[in-house]
C-alpha cells in the first residue's frame, strides 16, 4: 500500500515537473527571441483594431481596401527602422492586450493609454503620443465651456478609456458608452449633450463638421505607449530607441502634422527621462486598478443583468404579439396580407440582427425617427424574433387537425372564434417547447444590443474584464448569472408543458 502510494506520488511529481519545465521552456523561448524572431523572420506583427476608427488606424473611406492612420504610418516607420516588414493583425480593441499576452502578435499599438493596471499585465515603451481629453458639443449649444460644466449632463465617451473614468470620477454625469464614431452621431441627434474623448478622435471627427464644436482646453493629459509582453524587455528597449530616433529626426512630427495631431504637448515626448517614472507615481487621472472584489464588480454585473432581463422580456412580448399577427396574416389573410407577412419573415430571417439594430438606431434618424437606445434594442430584438415566432405559430396552427376547425364551424362558431377558442389553445401546447427555446436564444442574443450603447450583462462583463484583465473569473460569474436566469425559465416551461399535457392521454 505504502509502496503503491509512493509510486503514484512520484508519477505525479514527474508530471508536474514536466509541465512546469515545458512552461518555463516556452517562456524562455519567447523571452529571448521575440526581438530576434522579428529580425530573423523579417516580420513585425502588429495588433490593432481598425474598428477603433480614425485617425489611429482605419480603412480609407475612399479606398476601403487600404488601411490608413497616423499609427499605420508610425508602425511603418518603426518597421523600416528595424529593417523588417509589417504584418497586421486585426483584433478587437477590448481584448487587444490579452491577445498580445497570448502571443498572437509582437506589439500592440492602437491608442492604448499607459495606465498602472495595464502596466501590471504588459510592458509599455516610452510614450509615442501625448493625448488629452477633449469636450465636443453641438455648435448650436453654448451651455458647456469646460470640464466642470459636464456635471448633470448626458455625456458620450468610449468604453474602457481614461475619459470614461474621469467622468465617473467627477460624478453626477450620465455616461453613455460607445465604440467610436457613434458617439458623435448621437450628439448630432440630441441623444446626448456632449462627447468627451481623446483629442485625436475629437479633432478627426468633430473638427471638419460645422455642426460640432470643440470647447475648452484639453484636460487630463496622458500617454499612448506601445505594449509588448512582459517577457520582452529587449524589444521594448529597441522600440524606445526607435521612438527616440523618430522624434529627433522630426519624422514623428511629420507624421503627426499630416494628421493635424502635433501640438505643444508633444514636446514632452522628448523629456523621456523620468517622464514615465513621474507618470506612474502620479497618474494623470484617477485611474486606479480595478480590484476584483465582489462588492465592486457584482453591482455592475447585476445592473447589467437587470437590463438584460428587461430587454428580453419586453422584446419577447413584441415577438409573440407580432409573430402571432404575422402567422395569422399568412394563414388566413388575403393575397396581399399573405405577401406582406411572407416578405417580412423572409427579410427579417435573412438579415443579421446586428445590421437591423444599426439601421434602427443609426439609420432611422436619417428619415426623422429617433429612437432611444433602449427602445431601439427592444424593437430590434422583438421584430427580429417575431419572424421566427411567426413560423413556429404557423406550423403549430397547421398541426391542429382540420377536423377541429370543421367541428367548430359546424357548431356555428365564426372563423375568429374558432381560431381563438379552439385552434390557438391547442397550437400553444404544440409550440411551447419551441417558444421556450426561442426565448432562451433571445435572452442570450440580447447581448448584441450593446452595439447601440445599451450596457447589458455581456457588455458590463467585457468592460469589467477589460479593465481588470480578468476574463476568466468574471466570465465564469457572468455565465453563471445567465444560466441562473435562463434555467428557471426552462424549468417553468417544462412544468407548464406537462400541465397542459396532463389532460390528454392520446393527443
Amino acid at each position, binding site marked *: 500500500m505504502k509502496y503503491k502510494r509512493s509510486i503514484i506520488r512520484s508519477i505525479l511529481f514527474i508530471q508536474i515537473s514536466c509541465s512546469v519545465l515545458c512552461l518555463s521552456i516556452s517562456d524562455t523561448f519567447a523571452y529571448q527571441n521575440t526581438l530576434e524572431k522579428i529580425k530573423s523572420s523579417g516580420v513585425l506583427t502588429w495588433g490593432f483594431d481598425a474598428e477603433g476608427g480614425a485617425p489611429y488606424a482605419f480603412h480609407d473611406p475612399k479606398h476601403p481596401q487600404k488601411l490608413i492612420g497616423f499609427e499605420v504610418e508610425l508602425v511603418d516607420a518603426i518597421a523600416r527602422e528595424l529593417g523588417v516588414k509589417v504584418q497586421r493583425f486585426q483584433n478587437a480593441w477590448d481584448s487587444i492586450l490579452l491577445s498580445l499576452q497570448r502571443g498572437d502578435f509582437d506589439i500592440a499599438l492602437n491608442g492604448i493609454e499607459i495606465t498602472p493596471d495595464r502596466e501590471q499585465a504588459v510592458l509599455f515603451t516610452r510614450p509615442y503620443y501625448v493625448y488629452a481629453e477633449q469636450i465636443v458639443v453641438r455648435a448650436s449649444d453654448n451651455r458647456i465651456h469646460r470640464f466642470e460644466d459636464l456635471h448633470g449632463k448626458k455625456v458620450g465617451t468610449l468604453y474602457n478609456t481614461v475619459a470614461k473614468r474621469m467622468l465617473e470620477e467627477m460624478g453626477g454625469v450620465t455616461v453613455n458608452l460607445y465604440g467610436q464614431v457613434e458617439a458623435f452621431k448621437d450628439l448630432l441627434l440630441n441623444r446626448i449633450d456632449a462627447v468627451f474623448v481623446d483629442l485625436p478622435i475629437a479633432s478627426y471627427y468633430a473638427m471638419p463638421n460645422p455642426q460640432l464644436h470643440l470647447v475648452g482646453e484639453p484636460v487630463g493629459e496622458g500617454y499612448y505607449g506601445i505594449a509588448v509582453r512582459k517577457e520582452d524587455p529587449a524589444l521594448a528597449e529597441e522600440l524606445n530607441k526607435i521612438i527616440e530616433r523618430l522624434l529627433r529626426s522630426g519624422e514623428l512630427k511629420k507624421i503627426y502634422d499630416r494628421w493635424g495631431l502635433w501640438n505643444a504637448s508633444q514636446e514632452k515626448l522628448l523629456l523621456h527621462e523620468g517622464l514615465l517614472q513621474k507618470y506612474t507615481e502620479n497618474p494623470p487621472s484617477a485611474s486606479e486598478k480595478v480590484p476584483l472584489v465582489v462588492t465592486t464588480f457584482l453591482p455592475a454585473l447585476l445592473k447589467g443583468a437587470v437590463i438584460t432581463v428587461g430587454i428580453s422580456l419586453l422584446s419577447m412580448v413584441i415577438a409573440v404579439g407580432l409573430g402571432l399577427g404575422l402567422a395569422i396574416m399568412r394563414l388566413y389573410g388575403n393575397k396581399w396580407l399573405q405577401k406582406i407577412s411572407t416578405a417580412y419573415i423572409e427579410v427579417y430571417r435573412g438579415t443579421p440582427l446586428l445590421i437591423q439594430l444599426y439601421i434602427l438606431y443609426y439609420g432611422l434618424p436619417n428619415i426623422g425617427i429617433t429612437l432611444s437606445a433602449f427602445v431601439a434594442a427592444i424593437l430590434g430584438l422583438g421584430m427580429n424574433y417575431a419572424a421566427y415566432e411567426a413560423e413556429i405559430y404557423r406550423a403549430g396552427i397547421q398541426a391542429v387537425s382540420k377536423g*377541429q376547425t*370543421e367541428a367548430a364551424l359546424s357548431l356555428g362558431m365564426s372563423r375568429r372564434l374558432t381560431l381563438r377558442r379552439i385552434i390557438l389553445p391547442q397550437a400553444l401546447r404544440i409550440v411551447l417547447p419551441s417558444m421556450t427555446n426561442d426565448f432562451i436564444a433571445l435572452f442570450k442574443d440580447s447581448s448584441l444590443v450593446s452595439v447601440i450603447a445599451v450596457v447589458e450583462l455581456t457588455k458590463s462583463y467585457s468592460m469589467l474584464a477589460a479593465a481588470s484583465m480578468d476574463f476568466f473569473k468574471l466570465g465564469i460569474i457572468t455565465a453563471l448569472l445567465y444560466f441562473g436566469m435562463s434555467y428557471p425559465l426552462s424549468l417553468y416551461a417544462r412544468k407548464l408543458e406537462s400541465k397542459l399535457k396532463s*389532460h390528454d392521454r392520446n*393527443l
Partner: protein
Amino acid sequence: MIEICNLFKQYDHQPLFKGMSLAVARGSAIALIGPSGSGKSTLLRCINGLEIFQGGCISVDGEKLYGINEQSYKRGQEIGAVKRVRRKVGMVFQQFNLFPHMSALHNITVSPTLVLGVDQEEAESEAISLLKKVHLEEKAQRYPGQLSGGEQQRVAIARALAMKPEAMLFDEPTSSLDPEMIEEVLSVIKDLVSEGMTMVIATHEMGFARDVSTHVAFLEKGEIVECGSPGEIFSNPEKDRTKMFLSRFMK
C-alpha cells in the same frame, strides 16, 4: 326540410355530383349507403357548408345555399347563409373531433355560451341532461383523451344537440370505432330517430340502416341510384347496381 336540387360539384375538374337531387322530409331519418368514394360524406359536408359546390341549390328549412365559385365563397357567403344553415343542422364526424383541451362538459357548453349567448349555468344544466341522454353523465369532467372512442362519439352527439338543431347529419359515425363500441353509439342515434329528429346518416352499417332509418338512399359515383323505404331497398331493390352492392354487403 332538406332539399337538394340539381347539385353539381367537381374536384379539380373531376365532376362528382352531376345534377343530384334529394329531399329529406321533416322527421324522417334517411340512411345514405354506397361504396367508399360514392359521395356520401361530401354530400353531408355540402349541406352544412364545409364544402362548396359549383351548381344547384341546397335548402335547409328555407335557408338556401347556391352553387358558387371559390372566390365569392371566401368573401361573402360564409357569414350569411352558411351560418344560418349551420344553426339549423348539427354534424357528427367520423373522427369525433372533440376539442381535446376541454372537458366533455365544456365541449358541450362552449358553443351555446359563445355563439348563442346562453348563460353558463343554464348551458351546463342543459349539457348534463344531454350527457344523461347519451348515458355519460358520470364522465362530464373527463377530457376526450380519457374517454373511449364510443364515449367520445356520444359526447360529440350531445355537443351537436346542444345547439338545438332542426336536423342532424351523421358522417359515418361508427366507422372508426372498435366493434364492441358501435352498438352504444347506434342506440343513441336510434333514440333520436324515435324522437322524430330529422337526420341524414352516411353509414356502412347495413343492419342499422335497414332496422332504424325511415328511408334509404343508395349512392354510387355521385348519383342516387335508388331511394325508398328500407323494406323496398333491402328486400326488393329495383336496380342491378343496388343488388350487386347489397349482395356484397348482406351475404
